[in-house]
Structure formats: C-alpha cells, structure tokens
C-alpha cells in the first residue's frame, strides 16, 4: 500500500542511475567508438580532425610486441594470483581453523596490508629492492654475498609479483575462513568416526564444501590481477626495464597519458573488459559454483 504510488521512485532511483550512465555506460561506449578513430588531440580542433581508421588499432594489437609482453604478464599474474594468493590463504585458513584460539589475532594481522594503499606498499618494496643500500642487498652483505640487481630484466616481473601476491593473501584468508566456519561441525565428527585423518578430512569434507567460496575467490583473484596498476607503476614505472614489467593496465596508461596514443590506449581499455569477461565466464564454466555434487 505504502509503495503503490510510483512517484518517489524517481527521486530514489534517478540520481544514482544518471551517475552510472554518465560515468560508466556513456564513456564505455564512447571509448569503443574512440578506438576506431585516429586521435591526435584529446579535444577536437579545426584542422586536426579525427579520421576513421576502422580496426587498425586492433590489428596493431596483434603485432605489438609491448602488448604481447603486457598480455603475457597479466595472464601470468592471474595464474600466480590463483595459485599463491588463494593457495597460501587456503593453507593459512585451514591451519587457523584447527586452532581453538587466536583466530581473531591472525585475522587482524593478515588483513592489515589490504587497508594500506598499493602506492605505499610499492614504495616500501622499492626501498627493499634498491641496488645501493636497499634492504635485500644489505641483507646479502651481512651474510657475505654480492649485491643483486633485483629489478634486472630477467627478474623484475617476479619481484613485482611478490608484493602483489603478498598484500592480498589476507583478503582471501578472511573470505575462506568465513567459509570454513560455515561448514557444520557434525560433518567432521562423522568423518572422524569413519576413521578419517585430518588430511583426509580436508580433502573429503573441507574442499568439496568450499566449492562456491573457492569459485568466488578465484574469480576475484583473476579479475583483480587484471586490474593491477598501482604497484607496478610505483616500483617500475612505464614497464621498466624495457617494458618487461608492463601489465595491460600500465600499458594502457602509458599509451594514453604519457605517449599520447589515445585511440590505441582506448583499444587496450576495451580489450581489458572483454578479456575480463571471457576469463570470468571460463572460470564459472570450469568450476560450476552452483552445481550440486
């Protein structure tokens, strides 16, 4: 009865929807359009018209070696995120669930890096990796080894992946721990009565019961890895050295805002969306989170 008159709907719904349209849908469409033009200036000026170039930018994507590196790095990052972020988090969560005490303590500690900005974490790791006087090389000196160039071309990607993985383990830890706590105690009791060891309990009770939560974690890890920007940008700006540490996000930024290749950057932006969608769909299809076992 109260909600029969529809007029208030306008007031409650429209402001938010307008914002979503103006700042998400419209620019998203506009961005796709832009990627088909040759854009020399951000603002259209007389004499410097944009020219329609069709799928030129997308053809360039296929042959661009920088993009190939960025794409490979982003895919590698997805794999590493699933294996290590979710993997370490799962191990820690299972261990904590075995304990009677300390759950809150570990939860609080492990989660902390997530509230710290990736920019600050990037700076800390930059101080760790510095060749002259960085924390790691000081440590090597103490144990009598030669200093190492931690951000050398062959090693840089791994060194950047480490803080990305490290800082988000706590996030998946909390999600997985919540999932673990939701598993009824009786299932474990029943398994114990049937003679299952702790390891078997994990394999036959915990993991199957956690399927839905797992799927959530994996999708979050994969899409999160695709959105990586702040950390690599702070530790090794512009994909240094030699574009080896570019991710799709940092390459898009560099092309658009430092090189001024706006249309190409727009094309990369669109590819990120499509790729993210495809990967999430694939994960959903592979893991079938809602299927009954």
């Amino acid at each position, binding site marked *: 009865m109260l909600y029969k008159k529809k007029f208030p709907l306008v007031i409650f719904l429209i402001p*938010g929807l307008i914002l*979503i349209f103006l700042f998400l849908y419209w*620019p998203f469409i506009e961005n796709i359009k832009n990627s088909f033009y040759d854009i020399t200036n951000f603002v259209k000026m007389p004499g410097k018209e944009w020219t329609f170039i069709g799928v030129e930018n997308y053809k360039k994507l296929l042959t661009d070696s920088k993009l190939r590196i960025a794409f490979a790095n982003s895919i590698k990052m997805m794999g590493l995120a699933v294996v290590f972020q979710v993997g370490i988090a799962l191990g820690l969560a299972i261990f904590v669930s075995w304990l009677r005490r300390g759950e809150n303590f570990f939860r609080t500690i492990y*989660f902390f890096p997530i509230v710290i*900005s990736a920019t*600050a974490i990037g700076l800390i790791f930059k101080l760790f990796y510095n060749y002259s006087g960085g924390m790691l090389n000081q*440590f090597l000196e103490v144990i009598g080894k030669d200093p190492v160039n931690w951000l050398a071309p062959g090693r840089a990607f791994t060194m950047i992946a480490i803080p990305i993985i490290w800082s988000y383990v706590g996030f998946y830890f909390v999600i997985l721990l919540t999932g673990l706590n939701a598993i009824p105690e009786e299932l474990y009791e029943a398994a114990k009565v049937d003679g299952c060891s702790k390891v078997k309990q994990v394999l036959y009770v915990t993991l199957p019961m956690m399927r839905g939560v797992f799927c959530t974690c994996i999708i979050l890890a994969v899409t999160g890895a695709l959105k990586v*920007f702040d950390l690599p940008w702070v530790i090794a700006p512009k994909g240094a050295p030699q574009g080896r540490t570019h991710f799709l996000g940092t390459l898009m930024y560099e092309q658009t805002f430092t090189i001024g290749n706006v249309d190409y950057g727009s094309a990369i932006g669109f590819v*990120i969306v499509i790729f993210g969608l495809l990967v999430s769909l694939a994960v959903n299809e592979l893991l079938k989170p809602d299927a009954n076992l």
Partner: protein
Amino acid sequence: MKSSGDAKEHKRFSIRKTVTYLILALWAVTTIFPFVWVINNSFKPSAEVVNTSFSLPKKFILTNYVNAFGKQDILESYKNSLVISGTVMIAVMFLATMMAFAMTRYRFRGKAIVNAIILSSLMIPAFSTIVPVFKKMAQFGLLNLPVSVILPQVAGNLSFATVVMMGFLRGIPLEMEEAAYMEGADVFKVFTRIIMPLSRPSMATVAIFCFLWSYNDLFTQLIMIRRRSGFPISVLLNEISSRYGTDYGLMASSVTLIIVPVLIIYAFLQKYIIKGLTAGALKG
C-alpha cells in the same frame, strides 16, 4: 594399552599444534615486517638507512618528518584526500541506500532491466572509461578539481554499494514500514525515520569500503589531478617515489605518515573494516 595410545595421540597433537602455530606466526611476521622496517627507518638519516637498516636508529631524528611536512606539504595532501574520499564516501552511502530502497520496496515496469544495468556496471573497469571522462572534464575546465575525481569514483563504487545494501534491506521485515504508514507517515518519512536508522551498520560497512577504496586508488587521481597543490595522498606518494627516489629517509617517513593514520583507524574499527572489504565478495 589404552592409556599409552592416548599419550601417543596427545604427543602427536601437540607437535602438529606447534608446527601449525609456527607457520601461522611466520606469515604474521612477513606481514608485519615491512611496516615495522619502514617505520623504524623513518627516524634515521638516509645514510644510515642505506647501511644499517636492520638496527634501531642510533639517534632518533625527525629531519625526514620535517622534510615531509615542509618540502612536500603532506598536510595539504591529507586535506585533499579527505575532501575527495570523504565526499565519495558520503555520496555513495546515501545514493546506494536510496537506490537499494527503491529496488527492494517497489515493483515497477523495467525493474529487471534496472537490476541488470546495476549488475553489469560492476564489470566496467576504470581503464575503459577514463579517456572519455577525462576529455569531458577537460572540456568543462574541471581538471585538477576534487570534483573530477569524486564523480567517477562515486559512479564506480555505486553499483557495488547498491548490491550490498539491497542484500541488507531485503532482510528487513516490512511490518514496521506498514505500521508507520498506518500512522500517517509518507514514503520519505519511512525512509529517513525507519530505513536509514535500521541500516546504519551496513551503511557503515559500505562507507568504510568506499572511503578506503577511494583513498587508496591511484589510477583516477593520477590522471585527473595534475596540479601539485591538489595532489591527494597517493599521487603525492607516487611523485615522491619518482622524484626523490634516492632520499630513502624521506621516502620512509612519507610512507610512515600514510600508514600510521590508517593503522590507528584499523586498530579501532578492524571488525567493521574487514567486514566492509569482504562484504561484496561474500554476498556475490
């Protein structure tokens, strides 16, 4: 026979327990170490950071902090960040509650479409919208102003916040609202006097999420804010890192100044913060 078996069992348990605690403690140390290291080194001159970064400062000095406040004007950046992220937080909190209220209480034509619009916008990352938004902001002369970051960030957080609020509002029984209606309250009174007070905990959750997300986001802020006096914290930090990368002491003190306020807030509100940042994941 039985008792010796028990003893053996007991022993195995305690070994496993020790190992478990050890592994958990090890990860806890790796989590805390970088922060402790950087705070410790912020009180040393750069020359000391470079050589003896593991020991406590020989003499506590505040030069790095003087530089951070004086040369870098970190206070100004705090203010800019508070203006931007505070506004984003408040705007998203109210707009999301309003939208969630409309979506859970009303039946109307096209509701499924609106729902789909909200959900699909979750899939649109900033990478694919920033160029046109940047162009429009430049056209209207809004670049470098807080509003150029606030509007895209509000839009970027809104759908997610709405989804979380919808999950909560669905759980509030309608009886109270109906009773208020019988007493003569209109929809707006119901919203401000019943819905908002009842949803205070989830509004807080959403608010914390939005604030931290906005405060920590570098991408949008880096693009929109190019004038130094307008730099929010994360952009200033990026600038310090690329320009003063050799002044280790200054870098350490700047990072410390970013971490400490968040650490204090975290110490008091960690329960809500953890809930806030994982809420979306758990509700789908």
